């Protein structure tokens, strides 16, 4: 066993770090650091830089324009992006649809869509969840009726992240209503500007607009937009869900949140002394750090196994559960560290260019909001309850 990064890996880390230093504009990392609202252009700027460098499709096979990085290098890359306070890479096209097209798409689809994803020409959204189909995704109701040379699509998708920026959406739709739910689903690519597509914002509990409802009313979708075979969409959907699991634990985000927590608890005061000197509070921080330390190794074990070609099985479910709990714990302790400073909420503070005096220390503003926002991570992407079902079903033989 050797828990050190190799010289080659360290060199790679330096390369990524230097590149981010050179190319990531200061205003943008500042915005990310302050949890300010990012515009479509902000995301695109960073992703265009990655495209130019050839680093955008870091999960794809090299022959399609991927980087050829191994799992450890991918992990290092993810860590450096978070450390540099870069915007997140919008995953729907490059990390989700891309691999599905590479595996199941037609030559025509690959030739058309993959280069557009590599160049960020299309902003993709994910059309999976519906109001009645969350944890039980297979019970979805959106229909696509065969009308000869096109499908007629009717229904509603929900929780569509950044769907208000999207040009295109990949959707799971019902093409056969008379069979077991999993057997009648197809994977369809839909232009957002097709007549009959409507996007309605969902405002979340923190007052922000990030997710949407997407409604389809008699939307005509050309047959050539079907991925793979009709009624086999469930296989592709599952492939997509299990494809990219190195990042699922969110280790880099939790690490940076832990550092932030330490900074805040050095500055917050209790009885005139820094909060970090309070033995009860610092013990809580220490236990969180221990959880994170163990989880990082657990994650790397899983990642290295994947690098050797072993498909991660229930480990990714376990990592998803622990990863979300650890991340949520960091936001909880941050909130707690602030004490009454967590109360004020200035929505305008998260606009670009806001330069008034914050109330209390500058770091206080986003913390309570972040705590509430992060409740979502144990719900989305297959709730933690569903992950537990998966693990129990796959590994206990009960």
């Amino acid at each position, binding site marked *: 066993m050797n828990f050190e990064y190799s010289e080659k890996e360290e060199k790679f880390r330096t390369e990524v770090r230097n590149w981010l230093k050179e190319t990531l504009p200061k205003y943008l990392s500042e915005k990310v650091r302050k949890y300010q609202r990012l515009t479509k252009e902000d995301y695109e700027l960073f992703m265009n830089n990655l495209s130019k460098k050839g680093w955008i499709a870091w999960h794809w096979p090299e022959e399609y324009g991927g980087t050829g990085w191994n799992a450890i290098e991918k992990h290092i890359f993810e860590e450096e992006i978070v450390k540099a306070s870069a915007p997140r890479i919008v995953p729907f096209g490059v990390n989700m649809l891309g691999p599905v097209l590479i595996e199941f798409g037609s030559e025509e689809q690959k030739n058309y869509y993959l280069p557009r994803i590599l160049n960020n020409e299309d902003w993709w959204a994910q059309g999976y*969840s519906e109001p*009645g*189909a*969350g*944890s*039980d995704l297979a*019970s979805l109701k959106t229909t696509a009726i065969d009308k000869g040379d096109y499908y007629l699509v009717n229904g509603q998708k*929900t*929780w569509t992240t950044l769907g208000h920026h999207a040009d295109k959406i990949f959707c799971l739709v019902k093409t056969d209503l008379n069979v077991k739910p999993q057997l009648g689903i197809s994977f369809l690519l839909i232009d957002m500007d097709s007549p009959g597509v409507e996007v309605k914002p*969902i*405002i*979340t*509990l923190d*007052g922000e607009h990030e997710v949407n409802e997407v409604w389809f009313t008699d939307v005509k979708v050309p047959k050539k937009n079907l991925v793979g075979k009709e009624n086999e969409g469930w296989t592709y959907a599952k492939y997509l869900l299990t494809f990219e699991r190195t990042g699922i634990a969110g280790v880099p985000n939790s690490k940076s949140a832990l550092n932030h927590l330490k900074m805040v608890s050095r500055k*917050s*005061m*209790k*009885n*005139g002394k820094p*909060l970090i000197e*309070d033995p*009860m*509070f610092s013990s809580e921080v220490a236990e969180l750090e221990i959880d994170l330390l163990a989880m990082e190794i657990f994650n790397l074990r899983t990642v290295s196994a994947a690098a050797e070609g072993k498909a991660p099985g229930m480990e990714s479910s376990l990592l998803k559960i622990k990863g979300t709990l650890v991340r949520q714990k960091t936001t*909880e302790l941050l*909130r*707690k560290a*602030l*004490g*009454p*400073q*967590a*109360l*004020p*909420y*200035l929505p305008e503070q998260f606009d670009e260019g806001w330069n008034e005096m914050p*109330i*209390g220390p500058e770091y206080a503003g986003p913390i*309570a*909001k972040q*705590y*509430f926002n992060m*409740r*979502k991570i*144990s*719900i*989305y992407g297959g*709730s*933690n*309850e569903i992950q*537990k079902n998966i693990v129990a079903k796959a590994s206990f033989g009960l």
Partner: protein
Amino acid sequence: MDFSLSEERKMLQETVARFFENNYNDIKKRSEYLDMNDGFSRDFWKESSNLGVISGLISPSFGGLGGSGEDISIIFELIGKSLCIEPFLSSGLLSSTILSSIKNPKTELINQIIDGELLVSFAHMEMNNRYEDHFVESKAFFEDENWKLNGSKSFVINGDSADKVIISARIEGKINDKNGIGLFLVDNNQINNRSYNTIDGYRAAELNFDNIDAELLCEDDLALECIIKANSAGALALSAEAVGIMQVCFDLTLDYLKTRKQFGKSIGSFQSIQHRMVDMMLEIEQVRSAVMLASSTFETNSSTRDKNISAAKNLVGRVGKLIAEESIQLHGGIAMTWEYSVAHYAKRLIMIDHLMGDADYHRDRFKLLSSN
């Protein structure tokens, strides 16, 4: 022992409950009230006064009709159920507690509060004060036969709309000394205040003042006693409010578990979900019990009073987190939306732990008071 409410209190409970339900029947109503100039509805406040809700918080010795621990708990539990944002805590309880606990009680002012005509906020917290009773940096000095104040106060609930403010300021001593604090009454129009909404949908303000005129209400031991008493009354009220909120969170969640179907059955039919609901129910009963104990000893000597209030508020902090987080998790995505009420209840429940001492503060205070 008798755990039931008297007939009179049952009536109070029923009247207030009906009134709140009629005026706060929808979470959108609350947002409308918050968007008003003062951050709450003046009409609702006035009607509350007419109905005797404010006087229910104040002892008959000062013109009220209640003021016992039980009265406060009954009213605040209902405030929690409706997520009511009017100044019941700031004016109705904290300020009236201080105005009635000084050597020469300000009965006329209390009566004006009861009548819904006067708003008084209590400004004790400061930016670097973490719930402490005696951590006071703002300064008071006596000059030309007058008291003057300098400094700033933070997170003052309804600090923008208040007509008058009670400010804690240091007459002498070091920032953390127990002695040397005074409580002062000032007109709010002398104060430069910056108002904002809190994350849980209430109105608060930062107050800055520079050589403003002030009237001394009390000083030294009595001032500290008043601060502790007001904070304890506030912690009791918030604990009772939390009980109301927890019950609503529980009820909404249970209701959702019965109606939401996945995998062909209601999600509440899954045993793992049922067990989590049982854990929630159990913990809510624990909190309810601790709050009942704290209300029943509210009028006893201060160490018993404060010990039981700290027990309740500590439990509220711990259980509140459980209930808020589980309510959201068991609902799933729908609970992440602004439109659905459970998120607003969860936010308030969490933020109650940031007011009048959090779970850690009250755990430490309980340790101190129970070792004596």
